[in-house]
């Protein structure tokens, strides 16, 4: 029975001491310790979440870069293809134009030649005509130096007219 009978002295000292211990530790130890732990925990948590966010951002940027690169590559291919097409176009256009121009020039030259030929022919004809007339004139002048011959010719011509 003595064992389970609390002694007043020990009860008193335990109460006093425990309350003092509670006060001192509560004020000078537990408070600061728990605060420091909580602060550290939050800082670690923020650091971790920040790292996670940075990782995600990094991944996002990488994929964005890849997409950009891909786009750029497609763009480049497009440009190259277009340029090639344009070049071909230009070349063929130029060829066509040159052909056309050549043909035109040839045609023009042909016409010119024709014209010149015609002109030349006309001049030749003129020349021939005037030469013929000259020759004829000279011949006639020679022939009509004699009056009788003239009369004979007129009579001859008159005869022919009658026949008509």
């Amino acid at each position: 029975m003595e064992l389970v009978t609390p002694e007043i002295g020990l009860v008193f000292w335990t109460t006093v001491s425990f309350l003092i211990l509670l006060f001192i530790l509560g004020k000078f130890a537990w408070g600061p310790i728990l605060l420091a732990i909580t602060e550290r925990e939050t800082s670690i948590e923020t650091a971790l979440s920040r790292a996670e966010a940075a990782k995600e951002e990094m991944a996002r940027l990488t994929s964005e870069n890849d997409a950009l690169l891909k786009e750029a590559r497609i763009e480049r291919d497009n440009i190259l293809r277009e340029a090639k097409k344009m070049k071909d176009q230009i070349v063929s256009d130029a060829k066509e134009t040159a052909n056309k121009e050549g043909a035109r020039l040839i045609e023009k030259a042909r016409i010119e030649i024709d014209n010149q030929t015609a002109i030349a022919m006309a001049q030749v004809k003129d020349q021939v005509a005037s030469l013929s007339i000259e020759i004829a004139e000279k011949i006639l002048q020679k022939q009509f130096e004699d009056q009788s011959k003239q009369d004979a010719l007129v009579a001859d011509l008159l005869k022919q007219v009658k026949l008509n």
Partner: protein
Amino acid sequence: MLFTTPTFAEEKAAEKTEQYDPKGPILEHIADSHYWHMFGEHSLPLPVILYTNKGIEVFSSHVFEHGKEEYQGNYKYALIKDKIKPVTEAGEIDTTVRVWDFSITRNVASMWMGMAILLIIFLSVKGKYKTRAGKAPKGLQSFMEPLVLFVRDEVAIPNIGHKYKKYMPLLLTMFFFILISNLLGLIPFFPGGFNLTGNIAVTIVLATITLITVNFSGNKNYWKHIFLPHIPVWLYPIMIPVEIIGIISKPFALMIRLFANITAGHIIVLSLISLIFIFNSLWMSPVSVLFVVFMDTIELLVAFLQAFIFTMLTALFIGMAVEEHHAEAH
């Protein structure tokens, strides 16, 4: 714990002729004392503080010479079974005089030692948190932090919920006070060799602190549950007394559990050692030592377990008192 007092030695001398009785030394160890045994025949005499109707008197316990001498203060005192009793001239216990014994006994002294250790540990650990703010714990700090976090994350938060912060100082102080007292009590020689948490006076104080804290934290739901439970009204005369007994019995169970566990552990260890003297044979000692080592290992576990259970149940009772009822469970 092993050779507590000279009475032990005397009995050892007497054992040659008669059967050794372990009850005396064991109970002497379990109970409180005005001496703190150091080694061999040497004990540390502790201050005696007495309050009688003639006032307070303070003297050293060495005046009693381990109960052989009487001391004349305001009254004549004698040390009977390690308790200070007023005696008449004839040496009989004087029942007419009421003596309040506020002595610094072995348990009080060892309690202060334990508290001093706690203060040194945690004030230095707190300093570490200041100087190493935001850094990983180091040294003693890294040894203590898991325990503090254990009390917070496994004891306080699951049982109390979001209001846990207010109760952390009490729970931590309780946990570490019980733990250090349990552990120091396991040391078999000076400055151990006491039975503090196995003393009903200590556990009654701790349990009373739990009782007061729980009932002062009790919210509307807590009191409604006790005085206006959701049962037919004709059951009230039965249920309300039961609930009121429940208020007392919860901390009462705490008090008994801690007291009985620690006391039982000490009794078992001492009984196993006593086997050597009961069998009066040196050959018994290996068996005894083997069993004692085994028991001490278990006691080490018990020291942690009981500190945990006491704190845990205190947190649970506080949690029940501050809980916001969403649905009536009973």
